[in-house]
Each structure stands twice: as C-alpha cells, then as structure tokens.
C-alpha cells in the first residue's frame, strides 16, 4: 500500500500545541507511508485539493488525515479521497484536535501523542479494504412526534413537499404550549390567531394523519424504513362519531377535574374538549375524574350524546406505521417550582406560574381574560413577577438559562397594564436576556412606556400578610434589601425537557444530555440531525427556545426529512458484518446475541452456517466479539484492524 499522511494545523487550533511538521516527519517513517506533509486547513478547499493532488502525484492508495474528530469531517475527507479516485474506505483519521491539542498544553507530549495516533491510523489503514455500499428503497413517509408549534411546522412543510406525514400527539389536542399563550412577544399579537389556522391546516391537509391522545410505543428498523408502533390511548369517545358539539361537557356532573389545558386555573369536567379551537375538536374522558369509572354510576354523557359516540369499554389500540424519517418535537415542561419552600411551595394560592397567568390573561381562558386572584377573585393592583425561578439555579440542578422567560415576563407586564391600567408591575430579574429582533427594544418599552419597575435581584422569600403577599427581595443596583406588598406573584418558571424525554430518546436510539434534552448531531453544523440517521429534532426538545426559533427548527427538520426522502433509494452503510463460511462452525452464538436479528442460519452442504442479512445489519460488531473463531467480522472494524491499532500501541 502507498499511504499519504496529512497533518492538519487547523489554523492554530492544532498547531498551537502540536508540532505538526514534526509529526509529519515522524509519520514518513511508518510502514507503507510514502508521502507525509503538514497542511494549514485540510478540510478547506485548498486542503482537499492538496490531498487529491498528492494522491495523483504519488500514486497513493490510502490516506490518513490527522485533524479534528472523525465525527466531524470523516464524511468530508471520504468524499475528497473518492474524488481522487480512491475508495472512500481507504481512508483513516487521527483525532489530534479534540483528543490532543485541545486538552493539553504540553507541546512535547502533544506532538508525541499526535504522532502515535497517526501511527495507529496508518497501521489500521494498511488493513482496510475497499467497501461499496448497496442501495435500498425508502418509505416516503415521515413521523412527527409532538404537535406543538415546532411539530406543526415540520409536519406542514413536509406534507406540502408531498411527503405523507403521521403526527403523534400525547394530549387530546395539538397546539402544545403555544396554544396556551394569550399573546406572543415582541409583537403582542394573539397567539391563537396565528397558531389556530396552522392547527386547522394540520387537520385538513390530505397528506397528514393525526393521532392525538397517542404515544409512541416502539420503534424498530432504520433510516428509510422505520417500523413504528403508536399507542392510541382510550378516550372513551368514538372520535369517528363525535362531532365536537360539546353537549356532553355541559351536562357532565363531575365538575372538579384538573384542567390540564388551563394549568389548573379553575376546574373542568371529566369529559371535555380542551379548548374551543382544539384540533381535533373531539371530546375525551379523563378516567381519573369520571364518576362512572370511579363510582360505577353516571353515564350522563352517553345519555346526552346525540351521535352515541361514548364508549366506556374502549381500550388502548396499537397502530403500526412504516416511515422513512422521524422528527422529534416533544417540547418542554415547566420545572416543578414547588421545590422552593421559600416561595411557599404551592401553599399560597396567589403565587402562580407564568403559564397559569397566560391562561388568566387569555379571553378564552377560565377567567374570560380577566385577571383575578385565585384566592378571592379580586383584581390585583400590585403584581410582582419573579424571573429565573428554576432557571440558572445549580442548587436544584437547573443551572441553565431557559432563554424565553425575560421576554414573556416583559410581555406579561405589558398585558397586565393593558388589562388593569391602574396596576403596578414589579419585575425581579438577574439579567435581561433579549438578543433577538426587536427583543431588547421590547424590554425597554415595558419599563419606559408601561412603567414596570424592574428590580435587579433575586427574591428570597414570599409570605402572606394581611391579605397581601410580602415579597422580600434585593435590589443589588441600589445595594440593598427591598420589600413589595403584592396582590399577585407570578413566577417565571423555567423549562425542562418534557416528561418522558429520556425514555423516548432510548426508543429512538438518540442521545440526550444530563437534563433530558436531545442531543443534536453537531452543535453548530448539525443542529437538527441526531446521531441516528433519519431522526431529526425540532423545537424545545433539543434545548429550550422561543417560538420563532422553534418554527425555524421545525422547518429545518422538515427540510432534512424532505431531503432524505426525496431519493427513491438510499445507500446502505457497508460497515457491516460478513461471514467467512469456511471458518464458521454454525455454533449460532452470533445469532443468539444479534440485537437486530440480522444473522440467520443457512445450510451449506449439510453444514449449518451463519449468514448476515446485509440490509438489516447495523454494524455494531457484537457478533464479531462473540464469535470464538473470528469467523464473522465487522467490515472496517475487523479483529485484525483493531489488533493493528492495539499493536501499534504495544511495547512488548
């Protein structure tokens, strides 16, 4: 083999702490290396061209690039060597940036380590074989998990592009958190006026199938051909018959159900349509509150339903769908703020969350758009907003900034003034974070035009006194302690990954961070991809974000799915297992362990042998590690290739 080695400086990223020329010099002496050089930016066009030129000039048959992580640029360089006429798998990378130059400053040690990593890469490359992908057909349908604004955007874009879309929503209606908002910042336009029509579009789009009140049960298969099982939870109402007339909700005698949509601001009925603009506008029964289910007697809804849609015997149903791509858009939940004993831990009715306040502001909400104190229904005059509740708080494991609270608090302060002109708002904040078009201007307006008093400091304690709430805070700019007697306290509660996010990530085989947010493929370059091909991310499930960003990401995820499924055939990854039949003794151990059932037993002249089903194999290599005689090997990660790396490191 004729190997060429290219040591990338990555500007000063690598060259700052690695003697790249020195590494190149040492690499020249490695077996089969016929050409070795250092290079400023290997990934840039001149860099790639230099690699191609060197291949041609020196008749290289294999290339090692020592630069950043292969998780970043392996595909880039594979394409480059392919342009040079070499099979893309006759290429290896040594990660001398993330694993060397960025984690230590000792130039001598770094240079030595970089040279060793190159030696390992070259040793492996000598055993690489040309691999060629096979192609397989794809299912031109995309699954969107979550019907919030990000999911809606992704679904509509994909459907408009001609893809079939299956949307799964956990709640009985789509709309997500945005549907609960009264207005949106910084335009203060009506949330349901802009979201509502989009929700209707979802319902009416011929390419979209909506499964509301449903959850993802199971995912198997791979990019292009996922097999998905969806659990349609029992609503006890036959939605084919339900017309959404709402008669049942009027007559339901159980009137103390927790109102999920309205965040518990006021009770609701056990059978309900979450809100007037709900999509689908269908009734469902909350079993926990239904008299029939709990006391065995009632049946009022069944009696009044004009279409006979009530079905108390309804069971969960599993629907199976085949899709080519998946968009996860599961959004966020508010952190459980009742961990704050100093804010009353939920004991004081007039301490509400920002989302509860939205419902109080909303004309279609339980108070009809009138701001009323939960305790006595009176209109509050002094309203205190506390920001960073459960955000930027390492003590409760939520050290991150939720990102949207500063803006919605400003909006809520404005709306408070609109609703109650003689009210006074006080906003306790730590920093105002308003980087967005028109955002900072908005936070100035609320102070300058609406007279909200912004106080820079956290609140230490809230306690009731004489029908008011005493808010003990600090004004660090003034340098001291402040107190406000408030009629109502609104907590700008931060967000966290939606409940069940880790479990969903495990089903989708994608990664999630320590807080349960899904991991993007690359923080800069693959913001909507994941490490699992064919699974994309949209909205707050990837990290908290506001509506414009969620919508943008929804479109981006849709674009990725559309791009993927625009092709009729996809190339399979050739890094899969293969069996050398003469070594195989048919012991079946590989078949036993394969997580994908990708190996089957065949009969070869009376002898049992293993055979890899190439389209099913995912290339984990578990079989390879299991086979005692090494008869089954993982292409590109064979025993010999890994041993060559080990031995490059061994001294005895």
């Amino acid at each position, binding site marked *: 083999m004729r190997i060429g080695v290219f040591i990338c400086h990555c500007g000063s990223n690598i060259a700052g702490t690695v003697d790249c020329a020195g590494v190149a010099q040492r690499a020249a002496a490695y077996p089969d290396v016929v050409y070795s050089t250092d290079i400023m930016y290997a990934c840039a066009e001149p860099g790639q061209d230099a690699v191609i030129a060197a291949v041609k000039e020196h008749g290289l048959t294999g290339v090692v690039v020592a630069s950043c992580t292969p998780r970043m640029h392996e595909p880039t360089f594979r394409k480059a060597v392919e342009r040079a006429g070499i099979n893309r798998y006759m290429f290896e990378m040594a990660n001398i940036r993330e694993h060397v130059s960025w984690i230590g400053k000792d130039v001598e040690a770094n240079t030595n380590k970089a040279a060793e990593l190159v030696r390992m890469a070259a040793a492996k490359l000598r055993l690489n074989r040309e691999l060629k992908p096979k192609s397989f057909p794809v299912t031109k349908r995309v699954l969107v998990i979550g019907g919030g604004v990000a999911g809606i955007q992704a679904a509509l874009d994909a459907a408009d592009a001609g893809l079939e879309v299956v949307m799964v929503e956990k709640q009985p209606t789509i709309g997500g958190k945005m549907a609960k908002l009264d207005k949106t910042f910084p335009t203060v336009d009506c949330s349901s006026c802009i979201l509502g029509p989009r929700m209707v579009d979802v319902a009416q789009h011929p390419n979209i199938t909506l499964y509301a009140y449903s959850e993802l049960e199971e995912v198997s298969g791979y990019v292009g051909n996922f097999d998905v099982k969806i659990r349609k939870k029992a609503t006890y109402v036959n939605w084919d018959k339900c017309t959404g007339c709402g008669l049942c909700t009027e007559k339901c005698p159980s009137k103390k159900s927790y109102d999920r949509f309205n965040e518990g601001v006021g009770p609701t009925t056990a059978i309900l349509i979450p809100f007037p603009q709900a999509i689908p506008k269908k009734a469902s029964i909350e079993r926990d509150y239904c008299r029939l289910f709990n006391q065995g007697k009632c049946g009022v809804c069944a009696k009044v339903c004009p279409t006979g849609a009530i079905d108390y015997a309804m069971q969960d149903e599993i629907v199976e769908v085949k899709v080519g791509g998946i968009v996860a858009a599961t959004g966020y939940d508010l952190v459980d703020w009742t961990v704050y004993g100093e804010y009353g831990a939920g004991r004081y009715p007039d301490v509400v969350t920002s989302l509860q306040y939205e419902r109080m502001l909303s004309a279609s909400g339980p108070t009809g758009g009138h701001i009323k104190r939960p305790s006595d229904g009176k209109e509050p005059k002094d309203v205190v907003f506390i920001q960073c509740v459960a955000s930027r708080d390492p003590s409760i494991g939520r050290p991150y900034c939720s990102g949207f609270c500063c803006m919605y608090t400003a909006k809520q302060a404005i709306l408070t003034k609109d609703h109650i002109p003689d009210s006074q708002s006080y906003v306790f904040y730590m920093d105002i974070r308003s980087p967005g078009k028109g955002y900072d201007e908005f936070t100035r307006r609320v102070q300058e035009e609406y007279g909200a008093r912004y106080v820079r400091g956290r609140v230490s304690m809230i306690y009731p006194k004489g029908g008011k709430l005493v808010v003990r805070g600090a004004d660090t700019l003034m340098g001291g302690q402040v107190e406000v007697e408030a009629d109502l306290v609104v907590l700008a509660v931060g967000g966290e990954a939606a409940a069940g996010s880790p479990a969903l990530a495990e089903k989708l085989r994608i990664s999630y961070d320590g807080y349960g947010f899904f991991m993007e493929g690359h923080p800069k370059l693959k913001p909507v991809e994941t490490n699992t091909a064919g699974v994309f991310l949209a909205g707050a499930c990837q990290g908290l974000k506001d509506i414009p960003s969620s919508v943008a990401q929804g479109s981006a995820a849709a674009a990725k799915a559309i791009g993927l499924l625009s092709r009729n055939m996809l190339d399979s990854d050739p890094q899969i297992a293969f069996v*050398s039949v*003469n*070594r195989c*003794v048919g*012991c*079946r*151990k590989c078949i*036993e*362990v394969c997580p994908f059932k990708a190996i089957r037993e065949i009969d070869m002249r*009376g002898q049992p042998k293993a055979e890899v089903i190439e389209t099913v194999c995912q290339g984990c290599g578990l079989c390879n590690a*299991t086979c*005692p*005689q*090494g*008869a089954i*090997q993982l292409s590109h990660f*064979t*025993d*010999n290739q890994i*041993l060559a790396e080990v031995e490059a490191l061994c001294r*005895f």
Partner: protein
Amino acid sequence: MSIQDELKSAIMAALPDLSCVIGWGPGPEPLRAAPLFIRGEADLEGFTAGFLSVNNPALYLPSLKGSKVGIVAKGCDARSVGQLVTETLIKREEVHVIGYPCGGVIDVDKVAAGLADACEPGEVGALREDGDDVVLDTPKGEVRLAKKDVTADKCGRCTFPNAENADVFVGIRRAPAAAEDTYADIAEFEARGTEELKAFWEKEMSRCIRCYACRNACPLCVCRDHCIAASREPHWVSQADDVPDKLFFQVIHAVHLSGRCTGCGECERACPLGIPVLKLKRALSRRVENLFGYKAGIGTETPPLLTFAIEESTIKERDW
C-alpha cells in the same frame, strides 16, 4: 450384578438405536483407560467404568452430530453434555446418556508421586481397589496407596457425581463429595499476589510446548480446526515460542470458555507438562457463578455471556 455389568446390559439394550456408544476400554498403560467406541457386543470386551475412566467422552459428541450416539457418563461428563445441548452444539435427542455413580477418577501424576522410587507409572502392571486404598503391582512388589491421595483434585470438590440428565441411570446415586464448589483453591492461588503469580505463569508457560493438547481435550471448544491461535485471518497470536504468546493462547481458551466451562479438567489432565491451566478457567467460572449464579452444564438457561439483564443486580459499576 456389578455396576460394570449393569452398564454393559444398558449399553446392549440401547445399542440397536445408536450408531455407537462411547465408554472406556483398555489404554496404552494399565493406569490409563482409553475412550472405547462400542458398536457391537464384541467391543464390550475390556469395557471399563470406574476409577480409571478419566477421559470425558462428551469430547466426541459434536463431531458425531447427525447420528444418534450413546455415551457412558460420569457426572462431570454429563455436565459437558448438558452444556453442549444448551448451546445447541449437539441435539439432545441425538444423545443417549447412560449414567452411573462416579466415585472419582485417578490422577496418574499423583500415583507417580506416590510410587516415588518404586517405578514409573507406566511400569505398573495392574491396579486393584481395596477399600479406601488402591494396590498397585510394580516390578518391586505391591504398593498400597490411599485412594484419596491418588484421586483427581476435581473429584474432591465434585458436586455432581451422578449424571442427572441421564436417559438411563445404573446403580445407586452417590452423595456429592462437596455440597458446593467453594473455589477455595482459586482463592488460595489468587492470594499469592499478582507479582508471584506473574512469575508463576512466566515459569509455567516457558515450559509450554504449544501442543494444544489442552484445547484438543476440551469438550466445549467449538472452534476445532478454526482456532484463532492458528490463523492469520484473524491473526491474534504469532506462532513464536514466546511466553506472552503462549500465555495469550491460554487466555483465549479461558475467555472462550467463560460462562461455559463445566470444570471437567480435561485440559489440565491432558497437558503433557502438567501446567495447571484449569486455574484460569476456574477463576472465570467462580466469577460467573458469583455474578450470575450460573453453573455451566446444569440446567438449560442461556449461558450468561450470551444474554444480559437491563438492571444487573450483582454488578456494582464503579462510581467515578
């Protein structure tokens, strides 16, 4: 009727349905019985089952797959059969197991030690059991040795003297020599410390002649002609006569047998240089037993390394 005779009639009764029955017959020396392949009554001449029935006849079963075979089995042989069946390396319906109560087998090296200067074990004319003793005819007259002193180590810790999975069992079941295998030998060995053990293996492996008798005697080695120790594709070890390479072969064998080894001890017994290679396998068996409660060759559950539990109650992962 003696056990021997009962076994013979059991063999004859089963033989019509079988291509052969594997037992033990006369070996090259009076103290060493050899495997005997019985296809007819005539082959029963010299059949023996007892103190000299050292070899594990299960060794031959995988290569005879495809036809129904009978074997006369000690408890430990039967465990090998059980494990082969569990791993589907043989089919249970293709084996006819004839069990008998085993009272332990000879360790010829111990006899040699007992004989001391009297003679070499190969010069012994005959062996006779007499109560708790064995009596050996040697050129220098009779030598009497305590039977327990010339019995294989594994028999002293045997928990499975009877082939419990036998199709036919002859005789009365024996009580096991030990209630459970405590692996005291391994604990003791391990207690010698890594430095001493490293030197131990350096010395032992320097004597290894790479004859692979250990592997060839192992009834659970599935690789046979495709051992990775003699391959370039994949190429795990060189053919050099180096200690690390030879030791690595033992590691390969031990790792391949982890969670599978029934402890029949044939590897160690077969070693012409008396290298205690069973120690490595028993160290792994101890670990597997402690972690997963798994004893190979007893029961039919999947070997622990070919399966998993999502929550491993016994694996305490290091908390960094």
